[in-house]
Each structure stands twice: as structure tokens, then as C-alpha cells.
């Protein structure tokens, strides 16, 4: 049968960042997909040579605009681990709260993109309208909507007062209630069920063999969540990983929607459990230069992110490596795209929640 090659990308409406997939088709079925990335490779890991370790946090949080907070947090947690610095308790809770709010923001962004991928632009606008509430919370508490710059090695730069925290919780609860209606649309709309149900199925065995992480793995029945390690304050919260078993695109949508509710619940628990009061210490400044190496894992919205930091006793780090979750999910994406219909390719690509700028750094 005659084969056609259709290049998808680097610019495409469903892609938040550039990615090329050369789709080889027979009729309407994709038989092979050859990826090309490299359009947003900025060489950020090379910046350790120029930028001192105290300033590298600002570079790291700019790896990606969607996962920005956790990149900054992961860098600081790695350096604190190397330099044996303990973060003050209130700072630890604040980081957790900001991280979970960042997860809500990322999932809402993704739900909007997912809706746009199958043409439901109205739903896309609703999700992003709700996301604006979160970005306003970030602007009020950190000074920036997308790039927060509140993480420092040893703690955080700004405090959120107890009254502000209560107000944030009220806003999040309102958001959760408003989100129920949107989630209802995702669940009950027949065209969404038709476009996403049974499409791009990743069985549990396949998911294990391609080493996926994050919501992709959880939607295929693997109960993995890096927050279960219990670091950074998560051991004081009660939660279970959100798992679905169907493994298709709709299951991944459902996992992320349920994770929004889970994150709102985690923020509520954190606000209840954190120490209350004013003027608490927020930063334990380290002394000297870092020496040593560490592997740190966090749960970003897209999955497990793994940082490897190696320091050699000078002001510049020797090696900084961020293995972001999309890097681990790209082989799964290529596997899923093979054998599907051409019209399903954008849906499948967007359900892995691709963050190509994170992948390429």
C-alpha cells in the first residue's frame, strides 16, 4: 500500500511547544512516527558554567513556564540536601501550598488545551478563565503570575499571612465548585466521549515497559506518585494516588480532573496543619560553597521530575541535570501514535501533556 508522510509540527495548534512528528500513513492509519525535537533547546544546563549556584535557581525556574514553581523548588531542595540546610517549617509548608496550587494551574491549562485539541474552544476558555483566578493568587503572593522567584536555597522569600491563606482557601473552594460543572461537561458530553474514549489505549503492561511517569502511568492503572516518598512535607498529608484503569485518553483527562480536586484538598490540609503566626523564620541561609551530589525527585504536574546536581566546592556547580517528566513520556507518545487514526494524533499527543521546553531545556 502506498505510504504518505505528513509532517506534523513544529507549529501546531495543539502543541504548546514546537515538536515535529513525521507521520507515515497508510490510508488514514499511522504506521510510524519519527520525532524531531530541538527547537527550544536553550542549553540551560550549560549555564552552570557561567552562573553561580546562588543565581542558578532563577535560571532553573525559567526552564518552563507551566512547571516553573516546582523547578525552582526542586533546585533549592537539591542544594539544601547537598549543603545540609534544613528549611524552616513554615517555609516548607508554603512551598507545598504553592506547589499544589501550581499543579491546579497546570492541570487547568492542560484541560483547556485538551478541549481545544478536539475543537471545543468554549470549554478551553472556561478552563483558562478559572486558571486566571490561580494566576491572580500567584501574583498577589509571589509577585509574578508565571515565574514566581520565591524559592531560595534554605527557604522562601515571601510569607503569606494566615488571613491571606484563609482567603486563598475560600477562592480555591469556589473554584472547586465551579470546576464541578466543567468536569461534568468533560464527563457527559457525547462528542468528547466519542473522540477520547477508547483512543490511545496504553495497557498496564505497556505502560510499565515504556517507563511512563505521572498521570499517564496513573491512568493506566499504575499507582505511582513521587509524593508518596514523603519528602518536603508530604508525609504529613493524607492522600492516595488518583488511579484510573482504562488507559485511554479519557482516563487521562479524568485523572487530571480528579487531581485538581485532590490538590485543593491537599492545600486545605496544609493550611490546617501548618504553624500559625507572624514573623516566623522563612530562610536558613547556607554558608560556604556546596560540595557533593544528590538525586532529588519531585512530583510535577506531568509526573516525576528527577534532578541530579553535582557540586565541587566552588561557586559554580559542576553538573545540573533535570530529567523532566515529558522526557520520560515521549517514548510512550511515539508508541501510542503508531497504529492510530490520523485524526486521533493531536488528541494523543496532547494527552501526554507535552512540555517540550522542559524536555529540551
Amino acid at each position, binding site marked *: 500500500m502506498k505510504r504518505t508522510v505528513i509532517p506534523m509540527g513544529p507549529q501546531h495548534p495543539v502543541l504548546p511547544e514546537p515538536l515535529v512528528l513525521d507521520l507515515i500513513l497508510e490510508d488514514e492509519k499511522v504506521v510510524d512516527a519519527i520525532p524531531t525535537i530541538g527547537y527550544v533547546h536553550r542549553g540551560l544546563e550549560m549555564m552552570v558554567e557561567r*552562573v553561580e549556584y*546562588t*543565581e542558578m535557581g*532563577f*535560571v532553573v525556574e*525559567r526552564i518552563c513556564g507551566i512547571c516553573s514553581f516546582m523547578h525552582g523548588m526542586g533546585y533549592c531542595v537539591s542544594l539544601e540536601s547537598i549543603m545540609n540546610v534544613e528549611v524552616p517549617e513554615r517555609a516548607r509548608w508554603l512551598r507545598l501550598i504553592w506547589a499544589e496550587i501550581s499543579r491546579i494551574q497546570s492541570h487547568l491549562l492542560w484541560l483547556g488545551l485538551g478541549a481545544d485539541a478536539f475543537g471545543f474552544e468554549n470549554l478551553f476558555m472556561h478552563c483558562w*478563565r478559572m486558571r486566571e483566578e490561580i494566576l*491572580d493568587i500567584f*501574583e*498577589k*503572593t509571589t*509577585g*509574578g503570575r508565571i*515565574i514566581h*522567584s520565591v524559592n531560595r536555597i534554605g527557604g522562601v*522569600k*515571601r510569607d503569606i499571612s494566615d488571613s491571606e491563606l484563609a482567603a486563598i482557601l475560600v477562592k480555591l473552594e469556589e473554584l472547586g465548585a465551579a470546576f464541578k460543572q466543567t468536569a461534568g461537561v468533560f464527563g457527559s458530553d457525547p462528542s468528547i466521549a466519542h473522540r477520547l474514549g477508547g483512543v490511545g489505549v496504553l495497557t498496564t503492561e505497556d505502560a510499565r515497559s515504556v517507563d511512563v511517569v505521572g498521570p499517564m502511568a496513573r491512568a493506566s492503572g499504575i499507582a505511582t506518585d513521587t509524593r508518596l516518598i514523603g519528602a518536603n512535607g508530604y508525609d504529613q498529608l493524607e492522600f492516595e494516588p488518583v488511579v484510573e484503569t482504562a488507559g485511554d485518553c479519557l482516563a487521562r483527562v479524568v485523572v487530571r480532573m480528579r487531581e485538581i480536586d485532590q490538590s485543593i484538598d491537599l492545600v486545605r490540609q496544609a493550611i490546617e496543619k501548618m504553624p500559625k503566626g507572624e514573623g516566623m523564620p522563612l530562610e536558613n541561609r547556607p554558608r560556604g560553597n556546596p560540595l557533593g551530589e544528590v538525586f532529588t525527585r519531585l512530583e510535577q504536574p506531568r509526573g516525576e521530575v528527577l534532578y541530579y546536581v553535582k557540586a565541587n566546592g566552588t561557586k559554580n556547580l559542576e553538573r545540573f541535570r533535570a530529567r523532566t517528566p515529558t522526557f520520560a513520556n515521549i517514548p510512550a507518545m511515539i508508541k501510542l501514535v503508531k497504529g492510530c487514526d490520523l485524526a486521533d494524533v493531536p488528541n494523543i499527543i496532547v494527552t501526554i501533556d507535552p512540555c517540550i521546553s522542559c524536555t529540551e531545556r
Partner: protein
Amino acid sequence: MANPLNLPMVGRSLRNLVSRPATRRYPTEIRPRFAGARGTIEFDVETCNFCMLCARRCPAAAITASREERYWAIEQLTCIGCGVCVDVCNKGSLSMSVNSRTVHTHADVGPQGQRPGHEEWRKPALAAEVPSGS
């Protein structure tokens, strides 16, 4: 299947006719940024003592200064708005305004050919500080 008497839809349409839009009429209506938002760096040359801490600590190397020349400059388009310079300045010469930086174009080149967004100040020395016989 399509019911012309779709009551929930009719109710929603009527409500939308009389309620306010969900969007803001930008640029006629601009939301002011919240207090504490990180916008633009502002500098007061009168209080600066040229200790050079801000220039050393700037992660983007956007600030250049010289103690001997009593000169301080910032590249606004290189500045990432992190606020570290504001935090380290002992004299309070630096502050962060909530407003975003103004837009610059290629035509905004400075008088000595500096990049758009380049802002500089010089502080003349006091008479008593000028060495005699120079």
C-alpha cells in the same frame, strides 16, 4: 434529538443577555497589578553609595556600575525582575514598582548607541571629595 424547547439552554441564553461580560475590555479597561507584584526596577541615584552589591548579585548581570566613575546603569530588557538587587541594597536606592516595563523598539537606541532599555545615571562628586592639585 435536538429539542427546540431546550429549556436549560434558553435559560442560559437569557441570563447571558442581561449579565456582565466575563472578560475585561482591554486596553480601555486595564486591571491594576496587585501590590507586591514584580514589575520594573527604579533607582534613586541620590542615595546610592556605589557599594556594587546590586551589580554583583544580579543573576542576569543587568546592572553595571562603577565606584570610581560614580556611574550606575541598568539594562531594563535584560532585567528578569527577580528583586534580588532591591533586597541587597543597604541604602534603599532600589525599589520595585508594580508596573510592567514599557515597550521598547529597535529605534530606541540611546545617545551613545546603547541598547533599547538602557538607563544610566551619574552622580557628580561633592566638591570636598575632589583631590586638590589634580
